[in-house]
């Protein structure tokens, strides 16, 4: 990494320990770099604020208003009065029961009234407002303390003493801020009024309360503000998802979000706080839910939910707990590989439910992904949509002809891997600016506010601008942008990138496998039990030009692997192949018993690499060719959507002539291969 890359990775929080050490060394060696980093950070922060959405602005506003609204002296006064009354009632009843004459309470001495053990710890954040009548309040409070001591027997526990909460478990990326300072966070840590808990990553953090078994489960990413515990518990959920289970409370439990206020005395609820709405689901008990926009309040009973926010009517609706079966009536597609926050909705995005892998999508249902989230959607004919982050896909089929695929991409981006469609029923993808008609190919479509970009990897598609219905054809290696007032012309992808056509249906298989091509997905369904080998290959024609540099990519779902990986029984694995005139390049992951698992160019170089038996992996093979020098081979393998920087393995070879075939390999495992593509890079030396 260069200095610039290091600084940028530092600013985005992507530097690992090694990277941090390198940056540290650079900063020590070059003092000017410190000023540069400081400047970079300030501009970075300012751009984030200026160009980001208004969530953070709202969070500041809500958090300030909440602190100013919650009056510590009021709450302390009320708590104390409640206890005083309760104790007085109890005492009176006991005395009446004993039929004893009612004796006047002893007059307390002023000095006794301020004994240290009874001095309460009012739930007060240092940030809170000192109200103008604070002095008068303090005097009144002192009087009440005196009265309280008179009525309390020695050793009675103050309610305020139990007003804190504590961390039962801590999720990844959790940060606790107290009075402006970030504290090291740990399990069992006490939370006090004013603490702010920020969860940057997906994961759960659990919170308990000192005075009763109330429990909170917060799912990151989230921002949580602990206002107070005790008899009148109050929290703020500025962002994220929180489940609350509370036993009967003296005062209602209050949870505030930028769009709502929730109050309930007992039950199990789930509260979701998003930038534009808040959603409450009640599983047990009853809750009152107030929209902060118009201050309207409704009661939400068990098995009902309500949504408050911009342009949303505040009404309670029944929770639909029955999910459609993937092969049920009206099902148009099934969700796979759900990562991050992905939702399904019918009418409004505010009315959404979290999506899970395997969930069936019905006609008329839409899909929404949040930032850093993605989902793969499969149609029954194996057409696949890889839906990226911050995306809304409204429709999946044509309302008039349900056998025709019609996708409405409201915003965001998706990659479509389209299986061959029936004649006369080209799949249509629409954005506010454009329409794409396709009979079978692979491309990326991205809809921004004012423009739609189409990038074709394989084959060709018809691209129509809605404004004037002008249609152009965009071929592999080209892109086009539809935007008002801009010319609609295909242009070559930067860097001269294009993709080779791979006809999977015309592939040749070998070895001990059962290969099946379903649309643009290839399955090898047989786990070979052969002691040695058990390898199988599918080879397809994919001709490059002489000296082309290439990148082969594929997504591999390992469906099953042999349980038998003893040294004398061989191993299992999967890989990619590229055939040249006189040599074949293979990049594979070979999983054996402990210590023998490798990621390798077989017979050339290998690094230790071991992963679980099943899961989804992405594999990339780069073949870089330059005239007059050897070919450089590089490979990497990873899980998830975040491709690691750099390569994991590298080798050199003297390849001759053009590539003629590409292939997929399995060994003693059943795998599904998708998104298989070969990118051709421009040879810069020519």
């Amino acid at each position: 990494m260069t200095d610039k890359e290091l600084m940028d990775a530092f600013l985005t929080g992507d530097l690992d320990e090694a990277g941090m050490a390198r940056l540290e060394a650079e900063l020590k060696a070059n003092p000017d770099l410190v000023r540069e980093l400081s400047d970079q950070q300030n501009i970075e922060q300012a751009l984030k604020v200026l160009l980001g959405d208004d969530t953070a602005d709202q969070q500041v506003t809500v958090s300030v208003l909440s602190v100013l609204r919650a009056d510590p002296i009021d709450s302390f006064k009320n708590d104390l009065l409640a206890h005083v009354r309760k104790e007085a009632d109890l005492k009176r009843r006991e005395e009446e029961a004993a039929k004893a004459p009612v004796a006047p309470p002893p007059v307390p001495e002023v000095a006794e009234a301020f004994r240290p053990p009874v001095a309460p710890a009012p739930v007060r954040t240092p940030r809170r407002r000192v109200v103008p009548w604070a002095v008068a309040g303090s005097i009144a409070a002192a009087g009440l303390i005196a009265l309280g001591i008179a009525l309390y027997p020695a050793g009675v526990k103050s309610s305020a003493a139990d007003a804190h909460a504590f961390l039962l478990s801590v999720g990844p990326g959790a940060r606790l801020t107290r009075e402006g300072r970030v504290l090291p966070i740990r399990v069992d840590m006490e939370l006090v009024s004013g603490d702010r808990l920020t969860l940057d990553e997906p994961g759960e953090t659990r919170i308990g309360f000192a005075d009763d078994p109330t429990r909170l489960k917060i799912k990151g990413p989230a921002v949580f503000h602990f206002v107070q515990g005790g008899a009148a518990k109050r929290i703020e959920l500025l962002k994220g998802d929180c489940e609350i289970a509370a036993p009967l409370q003296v005062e209602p439990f209050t949870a505030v979000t930028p769009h709502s206020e929730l109050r309930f005395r007992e039950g199990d609820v789930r509260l979701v706080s998003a930038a534009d709405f808040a959603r409450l689901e009640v599983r047990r008990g009853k809750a009152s839910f107030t929209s902060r926009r118009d201050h309207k309040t409704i009661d939400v009973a068990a098995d009902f939910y309500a949504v408050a926010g911009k342009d949303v009517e505040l009404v309670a609706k029944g929770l639909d707990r029955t999910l459609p079966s993937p092969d049920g009536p009206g099902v148009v597609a099934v969700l796979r590989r759900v990562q991050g926050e992905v939702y399904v909705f019918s009418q409004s995005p505010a009315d959404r439910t979290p999506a899970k892998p395997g969930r069936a999508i019905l006609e008329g249902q839409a899909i929404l992904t949040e930032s850093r989230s993605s989902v793969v959607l499969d149609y029954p004919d194996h057409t696949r949509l890889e839906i990226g982050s911050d995306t809304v896909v409204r429709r999946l089929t044509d309302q008039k002809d349900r056998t025709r695929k019609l996708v409405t991409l409201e915003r965001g981006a998706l990659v479509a891997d389209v299986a061959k469609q029936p004649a006369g029923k080209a799949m249509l993808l629409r954005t506010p600016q454009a329409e794409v008609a396709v009979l079978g190919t692979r491309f990326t479509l991205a809809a921004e506010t004012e423009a739609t970009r189409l990038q074709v990897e394989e084959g060709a598609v018809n691209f129509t601008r809605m404004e004037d219905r002008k249609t152009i054809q965009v071929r592999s290696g080209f892109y086009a942008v539809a935007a008002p007032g801009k010319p609609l012309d295909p242009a070559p992808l930067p860097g001269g990138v294009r993709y080779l056509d791979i006809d999977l249906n015309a592939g040749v298989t070998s070895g001990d496998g059962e290969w099946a091509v379903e649309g643009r997905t290839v399955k090898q369904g047989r786990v070979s039990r052969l002691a040695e080998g058990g390898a199988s290959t599918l080879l397809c024609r994919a001709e490059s030009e002489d000296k082309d540099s290439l990148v082969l990519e594929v997504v591999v779902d390992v469906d099953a692997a042999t349980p038998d990986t003893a040294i004398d029984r061989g191993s299992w694995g999967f890989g990619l192949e590229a055939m040249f005139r006189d040599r074949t390049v293979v990049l594979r992951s070979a999983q054996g018993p402990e210590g023998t698992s490798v990621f390798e160019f077989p017979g050339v170089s290998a690094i230790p690499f071991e992963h679980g038996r099943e899961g989804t992996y992405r594999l990339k093979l780069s073949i870089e060719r330059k005239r007059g020098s050897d070919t450089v081979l590089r490979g990497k393998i990873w899980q998830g959507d975040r491709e690691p920087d750099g390569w994991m393995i590298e080798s050199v070879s003297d390849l001759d002539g053009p590539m003629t075939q590409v292939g997929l390999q399995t060994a003693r495992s059943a795998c599904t291969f998708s998104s298989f593509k070969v990118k051709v890079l421009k040879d810069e030396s020519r």
Partner: protein
Amino acid sequence: MSEGERKGRMMMDEQSLIQKVQEGNLEAFGSLMDVHVRRLRAVIALNAPVPHLIDEIAHETYVFAYNHIQEFQRGTSFFAWLKSIAWNLLRAEIQRFSREQANQLKYAEKRVFEVAPGRTIEHSAKELDGLEKCLERVPPRLKQLIQMRYHLSFSTEEIADRVDQSAAWVRTTLCRLRRQLKDCVQDKMATEKA
């Protein structure tokens, strides 16, 4: 409505909100916050040595402003008042942070902290104006990168994928862009001063 009229109207609305707040209306303070919160956070962001101070200082600034609203002189600039509160809080926070938190910071954060002070509130406010103007001049292709990073919150890899470049290219280009923006802002300020 002309720009001058619009500003005048906003100023009038703001003054009536301040009057309501001074009469004890908390909801009016909410509206007042909405008007300035973005720019206030941006001013703080241009000077905060670590990102999480931005919202903390904005929060403290508003709480302080509400508690001292009676001291605010109507007819003067409310945003200027907020900025000076924020500035004092930030300065105090930097001093406190460098004393108490230095050992908890990563080396790079610590060094950034050390070079943080040395500017003035007026400087930072002008810097923000300059940055907004400089942003308008960024060519559309590069503006797309800025939008993807800061508006759409795409990861480097997602941006790289969309512009069909390597992650290293994205990081380097964004780094250069920020440098150019900083230089542009400084040029603007130097020109104004001259």
